[in-house]
């Protein structure tokens, strides 16, 4: 029942218009009625009891009725529709969220001021913008360019990057080249010669002469 029910006037007893809800508390008491505190308490208790009974009845009814219902089989497109709905909802919420942060359109004054500033800078620069940019890069990064140029020159005219010698080659440098094992293509020869010296340090080396060193020394007249 609404407060402004237009039919209210037609349903009152004895032709008397039926009061609206907002008027009920303003109605005068019926003649000869004097409500006591006990009456009010009894009325309130009665209402409360009715609510309890209604709740209990509903609970009992549900407890009895629900098991009798079978779980319905979801339709074939239930999952797709649900996921679609969630995604759509999510999308809409993101859209709303982002819309609140969208950048404002630049004002015509802002555009005019920026164009004027760019035009002013171009007129004072010695080259066009692209060249000016390159010049600035060059000014700031010239040490790097110098290093790179030096590296390129070193690659072109120097020996280039030195390759690290394999350890067999390093052993050649460690040996006296008069001895043939200095040119053995394996480090095992070096290990064996060191082992031999450790085993008998008094003995003269039990090593053979290299084919090239000795003739060269001999040809030059030897050490004496």
């Amino acid at each position, binding site marked *: 029942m609404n407060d402004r029910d237009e039919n209210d006037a037609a349903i009152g007893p004895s032709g008397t218009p039926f009061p609206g809800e907002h008027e009920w508390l303003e109605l005068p008491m019926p003649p000869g009625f004097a409500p006591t505190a006990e009456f009010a308490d009894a009325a309130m208790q009665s209402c409360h009891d009715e609510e309890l009974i209604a709740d209990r009845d509903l609970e009992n009814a549900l407890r009895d009725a629900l098991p009798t219902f079978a779980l319905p089989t979801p339709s074939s497109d239930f999952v797709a529709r649900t996921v679609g709905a969630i995604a759509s909802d999510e999308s809409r919420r993101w859209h709303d969220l982002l819309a609140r942060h969208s950048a404002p359109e630049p004002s015509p004054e802002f555009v005019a001021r920026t164009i004027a500033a760019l035009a002013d800078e171009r007129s004072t620069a010695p080259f066009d913008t692209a060249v000016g940019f390159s010049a600035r890069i060059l000014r700031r990064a010239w040490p790097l360019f110098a290093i790179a140029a030096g590296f390129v020159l070193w690659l072109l005219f120097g020996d280039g990057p030195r390759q690290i010698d394999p350890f067999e080659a390093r052993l050649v440098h460690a040996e006296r080249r008069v001895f043939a094992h200095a040119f053995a293509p394996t480090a095992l*020869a070096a290990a064996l010669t060191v082992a031999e010296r450790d085993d008998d340090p008094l003995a003269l080396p039990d090593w053979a002469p290299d084919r090239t060193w000795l003739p060269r020394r001999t040809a030059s007249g030897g050490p004496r």
Partner: protein
Amino acid sequence: MTRCGTWFTVLVVGTAPICAQASEARRAIAREEIRSLLQRLDEALAHRDVREYGAAFAPDHPGAHAIRMKQLEQLFVDGTRVTQESTIAGDPRTVGDRTIVRVEHRIRAEGCKNAPADKPAEHFREDTILVVRRDAAGNVVPTLEVEVPTDGHATTNDVLRCPPCNYEFGGAPGWLCVPALSERAPALEAATFYFVGTDLACDVSVQFDSKNRTAIEMARHLGESLRKRENTAKLLDVTAWLPPAHRQEPPAGLEGARLELSIGAEQAVLFVVTFGALHHTLFVRGLETSMRQRTKNVQDLLATYRVLDTNADRAKAIATAFLAHTGGVVTGQAYHNERYGISLTGPDGWQVQQRSGSSLFRVVWESPRGSRLYLSGFGSPRRLGAWCPLSADDWVHNLCDANDLRLGEDAATAWVEHKCGGRSRTYVCPPRGADAPNGPQREIFVLVQEDLLLVVDRIIAAADDADVLERAAKSLHVR
């Protein structure tokens, strides 16, 4: 043209060059192409350009390549001009995409600013094993060149079999056996197996251990020795190890050890097998990645190692190995070498041992008081051809320098001519370093023959030993 047709055309046009290159790289390498390559390399040497020679290579094994370049650089000392004429010796053979050929180099070296007037040019021969492949453009590219002895290839089918040293090794697929030059290997016998087309190699060496160490002790000793020469070497782990061929029924007295090493970016595993005092050493090495990726290939090679006679008498086995490789034999206190016509009888009661270095032979007698007598034979350097008093004198000084012995100006006696055609002199060495002035006296007697330099080195630790040593030295007989 339909869309399918267009894609097919693009596919064919795009892949055709790749297929053609792959096919080109697989094309067999003809003898004539190798000959042409050798000619180019010879020309590089004629231009005195070892760098150009080396740049022609796409090295499989950087270490072996670097050493080869160092060897060639030695040819050009003191302004020497080198003319090399290389020819193919034997039939090329193929392993995977590599072709392997033995090459004979006839070298003429002249123009050395110190060359004697009567010998302005030297002629000598070098043999190498050359490995080549064809690149994507179809060119023949050398990948490995290792010098080998000129007296023939001692192996068959890449199997190194030495009954006197009592072992067999090699023959696994992909492994190329390259015998080592005896003067470069401080051992009775040595060779290197290269896994063709990679940086993997395995050295084999047979030596006598004068200290009678166990395999584990020997492995550690060699590892420590390597570390003294190469300070990046790290010894990782030493464990007992037996060759796969003998794991089921290990022969009595056979023991082995395995030592892992890391050397910079490279990794090595040293295997030592001892059967008496004769040690067989296998040294597997390569880049860490190659070692990891080629474990199976290494295992295949190791599986080929076997002792030939597991019941051999130890002492006899050692004597047999020395006799085969040095020509010498010890009977009682006497040493006799039929190959070089040498004999010498050492003092009674002294311990006598043969040694396995890179000289032709060495024997040592040691007294209980510490006196010693060494008898050594040195072959003439190949390029020198024959020893002469000058070169012998130079060589003795080098040996003494390496041993911190200083020979004075008047240390040597005059040269004496002998009936055998040789000439001799004696050097008297002052006591050295920390031993001076009460250290042992030392006398070094040298006898120079064309193909042999004989050195008798006497260390007199006790005065009572002087006469005995004198008598022993005088027992030297040269045929």
